């Protein structure tokens, strides 16, 4: 399957074919990395885009929260990763009492 990837970013990619434009990624990202584009694509979806990539802590929340598996974050580069297979949440990000 061929997926179109929006933008040319290093850390985060959004798959235009899978995104349905719910904008939950904007809601879930605690660093406000995303913004909504002003145009709609051919499916009538107002796509999100990565506006402030430098803010991203690669916590991976948006990747799990996107209902359409449209977001890919380059997690294994993360600073709290011990090894490549340990895809985990940042232990300092939330302790469950947020």
């Amino acid at each position, binding site marked *: *399957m061929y*997926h179109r*990837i929006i933008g040319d*970013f*290093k*850390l985060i*990619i959004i*798959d235009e*074919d*899978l995104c*349905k*434009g*719910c*904008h*939950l990624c*904007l*809601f*879930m990202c605690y660093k406000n990395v995303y913004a909504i584009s002003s145009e709609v694509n051919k499916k009538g*979806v107002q796509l999100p885009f990565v506006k402030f990539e430098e803010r991203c802590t690669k916590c991976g*929340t948006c*990747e*799990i*929260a*996107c*209902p*359409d*598996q*449209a*977001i*890919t974050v*380059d*997690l294994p580069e993360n600073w709290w990763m011990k090894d490549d297979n340990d*895809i*985990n*949440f940042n232990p300092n*990000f*939330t302790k*469950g*009492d*947020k």
Partner: protein
Amino acid sequence: MSQEKQNRFLPYLREDRLPHIFCPGCGNGAIINAFLAAMEKAEMDFDNIAMVSGIGCSSRIPGYLKCDSLHTTHGRALSFATGLKTANKDLDVVVFTGDGDAASIGGNHLIHAARRNINLTVICINNNIYGMTGGQISPTSPKGSFGTTAPYGNQDTPFKLAELVAAAGATYSARWTTVQIENLVTSIKDGLKNPGFSFIEVATQCPTYYGRKNKLKTPTAMAAVMKANTVFKSAADRMRPRDLEGKIVVGEFADYTKDEFTESIDKLSVEKSGNRTIINSAYEREL
């Protein structure tokens, strides 16, 4: 990052069926991700998982996953799962069910599966409504909420599913929402590891029916309301019942161990006949 890198959940999904049928912003998709992340964390074998579901939007989830699955009849997912697990207790049986599926038509199956403490992991997707059939009121719809069967607002008190299942005898029971996605992942992981009946209720959004009927126009509006209404169990224990009205209490309601159904059957079988429970009775001689 190279352009070939793909979403970490896609390898588990039937890509030819994507994008899935769920409406934009429906919580079901995020719950698939949370389950897969939890499964990775629990270091489980994806090929040893058998998924069982009933009927409903939420029950369509196993159809998108590349593992064995049974899409059964409305409300009977737990009955099929009980049969599957009893016949082959080495399988990891996971049940995806909706609030209508689990609590109205399947309510009795739910409490008795919990009472037996059979080793299943049940993920109950509670969107407070019958999504698939067009927005009828379900046993978990909040008092005063609107649906096609409640044009003047629902008059009934909803079930508290996680508490109900804990009281019925489940050894693991928890409630989280799609907004506390990290806690949800950890909770599903704990449920998968628990050797007994594990019930994880996920409060989620159905923007198409619940949202539209209840003046919550966008998925993000629903998520924001859900986040604002969430109370952690530790805090809720110190609150008065009337302050908790309309709130979603999140946390764990049961986490302990006791005798498990298939283990007990095995033990009884060995005691009485000298054999472990027979897996495929028709092929008994070949075993």
